[in-house]
């Protein structure tokens, strides 16, 4: 079982605020996932490359041809704040 500190660290990285109850749920669920990894680790996997993709597809590439994107008004339509034709965000300096 992973500890509460680890849960909070992961939550912080993911910008999640967890209530004490949620922390407990996450501890159990994350521990379950890690235990499953331990099951896989117990198998002898020497020489077996990790499965990074489940599709047997490679090289899906696109020609370098420009395509029209969104008009600016539309691009900015869902922005919470628009400042000078740009997305306004909290002060970041």
């Amino acid at each position, binding site marked *: 079982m992973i500890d509460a500190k680890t849960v909070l660290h992961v939550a912080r*990285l993911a*910008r999640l605020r967890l209530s004490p109850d949620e922390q407990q749920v996450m501890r159990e669920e994350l521990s379950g996932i890690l235990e499953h990894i331990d099951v896989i680790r117990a198998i002898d996997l020497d020489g077996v490359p990790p499965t*990074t*993709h489940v*599709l047997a*597809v*490679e*090289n*899906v*590439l*696109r*020609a*370098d*041809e*420009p*395509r029209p*994107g*969104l008009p*600016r008004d539309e*691009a*900015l339509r869902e922005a919470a*704040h628009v*400042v*000078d*034709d*740009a*997305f*306004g*965000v*909290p*002060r*970041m*300096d």
Partner: protein
Amino acid sequence: MSGFEPVIGVEIHVQLSTRTKMFCGCALSFGDPPNTHTCPVCLAHPGVLPVVNAEAVRRALLIGLALGCEIAPRSIFHRKNYFYPDLPKAYQVSQFDIPICGRGEFTAIRDDGTDLVVGITRAHLEEDAAKLTHAGGRRAGAEGSVVDFNRGGTPLVEIVTEPDLRSASDAGTFLRQLRQTLLFLGVSDCSMEEGSMRADANVSIRPVGSHALGTKTELKNMNSFRFLERGIDAEIARQTQIVASGGRVRQETVHYEPETGEITPLRSKEESHAYRYFPEPDLVPVVPDPAWVDDLRHGLPELPVPMRRRMVGEMGLSAEDAEVLTGSPELAAYFMAVAGEADPKAAANWVRGELRAQLREVGEEPWESRVTPSRMAALVGLLAEGTVSVPAAKEVLAEVIATGGEPAAVVEARGLGQISDEDALRDVIADLMDANPDQAGQLRDGKEKVIGFFVGQAMKQTGGRADPKAVQRLVRAQIGGD
């Protein structure tokens, strides 16, 4: 330096000058109005899928091949997770454990002619972040920052070196010649000012003789190699002082302020696992066809460092000539074309010197001027044959720049041909001796000082077209005559 040696590695981000972004068809742009080149993919709208730009893969392979990297038979993309407003997906698509280009090596030439060999750790593909501007600058009361997504998703290749560099000036030498190489490959504009090439340096120090690595700091994003070199020197000095006085260097990102020469910490570096890299499920592996990679390898242009060696070794140019003439791919191609048809050393002198000087006056570059390489070579040839004198050749060059004529035709039309016909020159000298009997007498008596007088007069009489060497010889022949 006080028993410590610096250990430096660099990371270079290069924006590829493709037509479109890394994972969507939005056009690349620089300086266009904000947010005019965006789409649901590069704005990270839900449910969209990225598709890899084939040209970006091709250019990454070219870079890898030019740096002697092992090309991965199969490489994959990873998500690098972090939160920042310039990254709408909250992850950057990058490469992690299987980059498209693995270990390589780049050899640069130091000013003293010695080799500077730098190990390349990797070169991988990723996407650039958007441009974040702090509204109202740093003035108090500025409410927030603004994001322009035009740059977001631009294809980037990140090149990482081994910690093989031992001085700021070596770092500068490496970066300048790497930049030239990328320019010759035609993969990027490599403009430091516009940010299409950005370099960070990892700097640490260790006692001389030690093989362990000290704690490193990362010197961020300098917009010129000169400032980067100065920043590295300042950081080496700072670390040396800390360690010499018994302190410990902290692992952090630092900023060098060129104005004041000061180093200030930026933010404590997040540990690598905090990025929670994992394979990008939306992108399938890139498996370059070995035949394609071979074609690219064989199609590589001659790169500036080997070209410099060839200029010095085979063409007999000075190291400085070679450096100047490989200053840009255009100039190198121009010079090589001239040198293919004329004596390389003379061609180097003229291209570097008079041609560039005269073109500077009219604001043109050699390769876009009327002085085609064949014309330049023809003029160098006319000089070598003695058909024109140096002053006349300069005049011909000016005429070719202005009107685009063939040098031989300009010489003919303007009567600029050098007179080396000895009979004609003898007549000129005889006339001069008749007109200046006192000096003629002194010449016959062997008075050396009047030789210059007659040579000067002969040049004047012929409007500078006489071959000065022939005149000199013929005047001397009069000594002891009657």
